């Protein structure tokens, strides 16, 4: 009894976290290249709406995802153009796009509010699904969940194990040095910002076509900000970022269980919890709080634990690169 409940929870956490994982991977790639795509919340909203709208009108989920991808990529392209080519403040452009994306989604999405539409089909994998426990958690999902897990590994492999990944990191850490080695810094930044944006678009459609079906005003509100915070918590490392996203999912679903077992606590506590958690998580990884915690460890362990917990952004994050 207990174990089946646990399996059910873990399997739903895995499913519900997949959009967050995909969006955070996209943002990790962009920020690794030195560009902050702050528009995540608006991008996810607009792509969730467009993905659902296209899938609803055509009856084809794949077309929905393609549309969402294009929307996400387009938003990222605006950020890339404004920051890389025009040297405008990434935060300013990103913030304005966040609002613009949300307003556009609300305006254009009105005809699709609360309509039943297509969804990503449930796709258990034959044979593997029958493995006890593991099969029940991992292999009775839809294709998005499988894709999100594969994506984590691919992004990690790309960033840390390939030549292209080395250049990607170079562009975000030491653009001058990368440039001197013949890397076209700004072109790569464009590329990875747009690729990251396309992933964010997929994440948006993953909400409206799988995790939180359909469209309504403010359908995905707040999730983009949480994804951005998770990238920081994850120290721009795909595995840690993914861990952060799943941890977040576990904590939220624990909250849901708590809510049912302790009826006295107001529901609003659980609605605000993700955002309180977001602040606490950032408080934990940044500066003061972490150092104080580390001083509690014995000196010999302090360095090992510190290295594992401390995070630093790519050195050239949000800094435009200008050739002389």
């Amino acid at each position, binding site marked *: 009894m207990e174990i089946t409940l646990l399996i059910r929870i873990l399997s739903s956490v895995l499913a519900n976290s997949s959009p967050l994982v995909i969006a955070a991977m996209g943002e990790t790639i962009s920020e690794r290249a030195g560009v902050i795509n*702050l528009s995540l919340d608006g991008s996810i909203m607009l792509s969730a709406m467009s993905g659902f709208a296209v899938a609803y009108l055509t009856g084809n989920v794949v077309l929905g995802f393609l549309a969402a991808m294009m929307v996400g990529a387009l938003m990222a392209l*605006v950020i890339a*153009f*404004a920051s890389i*080519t*025009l*040297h*405008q*403040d990434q*935060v*300013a*452009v990103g*913030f*304005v*796009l966040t*609002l*613009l994306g*949300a*307003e*556009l989604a*609300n*305006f*254009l999405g*009105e005809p699709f509010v609360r309509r039943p539409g297509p969804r990503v089909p449930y796709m258990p994998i034959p044979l593997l699904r029958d493995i006890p426990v593991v099969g029940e958690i991992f292999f009775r999902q839809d294709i998005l969940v499988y894709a999100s897990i594969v994506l984590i590994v691919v992004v990690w492999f790309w960033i840390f194990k390939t030549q292209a990944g080395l250049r990607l990191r170079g562009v975000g850490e030491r653009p001058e040095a990368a440039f001197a080695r013949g890397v076209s810094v700004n072109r790569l930044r464009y590329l990875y910002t747009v690729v990251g944006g396309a992933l964010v678009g997929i994440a948006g459609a993953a909400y409206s076509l799988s995790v939180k079906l359909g469209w309504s005003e403010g359908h995905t509100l*707040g999730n983009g*900000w949480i994804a*951005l*915070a998770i990238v*920081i918590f994850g120290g721009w490392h795909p595995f840690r970022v993914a861990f952060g996203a799943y941890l977040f999912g576990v904590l939220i679903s624990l909250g849901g269980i708590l809510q049912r077992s302790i009826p006295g606590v*107001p529901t*609003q*506590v659980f*609605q*605000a919890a*993700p*955002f*309180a958690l*977001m*602040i606490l998580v*950032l*408080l934990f990884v*940044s*500066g*003061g*709080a972490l150092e104080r915690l580390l001083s509690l460890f014995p000196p010999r362990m302090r360095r090992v634990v510190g290295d594992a917990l401390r995070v630093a952004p790519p050195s050239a994050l949000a800094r435009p690169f200008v050739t002389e």
Partner: protein
Amino acid sequence: MTYSQRLVNLLLGLAPVALALMLSTLVLIAAGAPPLEAYKHLLQGASESPAKIADVLVVWVPLALCSAGLLFTFTAGLWNIGVEGQIIFGVIFATWVARNLYLPATLLIPLMIVGGMIGGALWGLLAGTLKVYGGVHEIFAGLGLNFIAITTNIWLIAKPWRPDLGATMQGTDPFPAAAWLPRLAGLRLSPVSLLLATMALVVVFFILRGTLWGLQLKAIGKNARSAYLLGIATNRHVLLSFALCGALAGVAGVVQVSGVWGRNIPQISGGIGYLSLLVAMLSGFRALGVAPVALFFAALGVGAARLHLRMQLDPSLAGVLGAGLVLSVLLVAGLRTRLLISREG
């Protein structure tokens, strides 16, 4: 300046407006609505009668108050996205005062304003403290606190402040008459709130322009490290700018509950906090610019209400136009410097 240079400047000045209109026209076409008719309703909805113009001023007041406050934090180089939450904590404190102190209006209203300022300032200070002492970027601190403030207010309205009749989520009971700001006859506009917003703009203008503190804040915004090395107490200045911005946002909250609605409702802040960031950005971070820009945004908002009435279009078109305009301004400013560089080089 030659004639052609002037022409180029004029075109560059008008380009953002044209770009934003292009975007919203495309959006209207995509939504299957006739654009010209929509713009006509937008204009008329904001200007056809004295009551509509008064409504525009009703929206202008909180926008101007919040944008004035944002000038402090923007001057210090901070992205105070938490205005929405600061408005709400102003509302919460003012609501408490209105419900619990049984005083005549002459005492109650000033106390509500002071209470609202304290509430907003505390919520702003919380974001500032997280930033200064916790190393949490103010964007995340402010945004998280916004969501927390909104849910706190919803809980207060649903539980302790629930109306006696029926437990709906419509809001609290109306405040006692003494807690209402006096209104102009037949209009929703209160002269007190107009006065408050105008005063705020004037005071912010002089503080940022004519005081040492304003100058030091500017130094921090330009380069926090050098300012610190020059002996400016950066942390204290940053915290104070958060508190001042929060206080003005709190006043905006008081105006909303006691001047516009006369009670506390869940959607009391209605996105004004986010909109005021756009206003401040578009004003070029100057108090003199805030007044007209806020008026423009207020007119958009009021005009858009009519789109829904007459054409069944979502009023978020106003937001599309507003955000589109700010985006276009950023893009055109970038293009302009790029053009200048390529011409010199």
